[in-house]
């Protein structure tokens, strides 16, 4: 027996062999019955030194396990990657994926627009009511009338659907092809100012009405 090989085997048994050498020796160990028998005796030496009482040192456990596993299919049948032809994509699969993504995006846009309240209820963020915004100078003490009025600040408007839509577009942009994404974004951009303008107009009408 090659002494260098045996030395490597001893080091491998102790997990002290470099991984590259382990790979080579593992291959040989799995096929060489003499090497395997020596490996098994190294295990026995360890068991004796550790004084593993009650354990049969010559138990044919490995042989019994081996006999059972002979009837088992090799694991490669379960774990090996599938045949390359099986995983090859057909030409239409990316297009179909893009069509599905575009369809989902379109349905989502329609759904989100359906969620926008009608013209009777303006799109205003439901923030907590602020403190009174109109500060009147107390005039009672001075006996003078109201000298001036601090203008009421315009309430901030938040366009909720737009944010959701933007998030949706960003989140799904990686799944849609560039052309579909561009169309979706352009549609989104063109519809945005109109909605924002309508909201501003509604806000103005309300302030005038007050």
């Amino acid at each position, binding site marked *: 027996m090659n002494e260098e090989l045996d030395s490597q085997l001893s080091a*491998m048994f*102790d997990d002290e062999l*470099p991984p590259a050498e382990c790979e080579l020796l593992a291959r040989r160990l799995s096929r060489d019955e003499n090497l395997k028998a020596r490996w098994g005796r190294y295990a026995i030496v360890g068991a004796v030194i550790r004084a593993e009482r009650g354990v049969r040192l010559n138990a044919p456990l*490995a042989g019994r396990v081996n006999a059972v596993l002979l009837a088992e299919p090799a*694991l490669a049948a379960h774990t090996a990657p599938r045949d390359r032809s099986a995983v090859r994509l057909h030409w239409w699969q990316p297009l179909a994926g893009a069509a599905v993504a575009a369809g989902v995006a379109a349905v989502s846009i329609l759904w989100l627009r359906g969620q926008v309240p009608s013209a009777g209820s303006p799109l205003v963020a439901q923030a907590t009511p602020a403190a009174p915004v109109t500060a009147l100078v107390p005039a009672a003490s001075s006996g003078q009338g109201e000298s001036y009025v601090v203008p009421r600040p315009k309430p901030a408007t938040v366009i909720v659907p737009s944010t959701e839509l933007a998030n949706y577009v960003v989140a799904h942009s990686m799944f849609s092809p560039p052309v579909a994404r561009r169309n979706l974004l352009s549609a989104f951009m063109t519809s945005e100012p109109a909605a924002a303008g309508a909201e501003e107009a509604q806000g103005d009408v309300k302030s005038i009405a007050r």
Partner: protein
Amino acid sequence: MSADASDLSLVRRVQRGDKGAFDALVLKYQHKLVKLVMRYVRNPAEAEDIAQEAFIKAYRALPQFRGDSAFYTWLYRIAINTAKNAVVSRDRSPVEYDLDRNNNDESYDMQGRMKDSETPEGLVLTDEIRSTVNAAIDALPEDLRTAIVLRELEGLSYEEIAAAMDCPVGTVRSRIFRAREAIDRRLREVFEGGLGRAEELG
């Protein structure tokens, strides 16, 4: 040195369909596993059966083993669960009472231990293996004996042994190998003689 590289290289081979590599893993860990299972069942033959079942379960589960933990840690958990389940199912099964059993628990325990595959020949051979290995270790030069005992008994790495013995790691590797070779020479003789005797008796 990457820990568990040796086991992992064998595991990867098994995962690629090499059953012989699993045989090496069984040979390496069978005694440890039987000893572990014997915390739950005292009968060595039963412990061997449970260890066998644990190895087979491990083989079947190997496709799911990713190597996040050491192979033995993973195997250890499988063996513990298998042993616990075996104890539970045994406790549920009807117990056969021996009406002739007297109060001599020692002799009863010996009968229990010697059932199934445990033959007198096997017991003798185990004792012979044990005494041969111990005698071989005693005959080793001090530096070889210290190195192999630190490795096998204390579980120290080569680097730790090198620090303890104040020598290079390469020397530790060489000492452990030479110690194993010296013990193995004696052990081979026992195995060849023991197997010969077993055949004569058979």
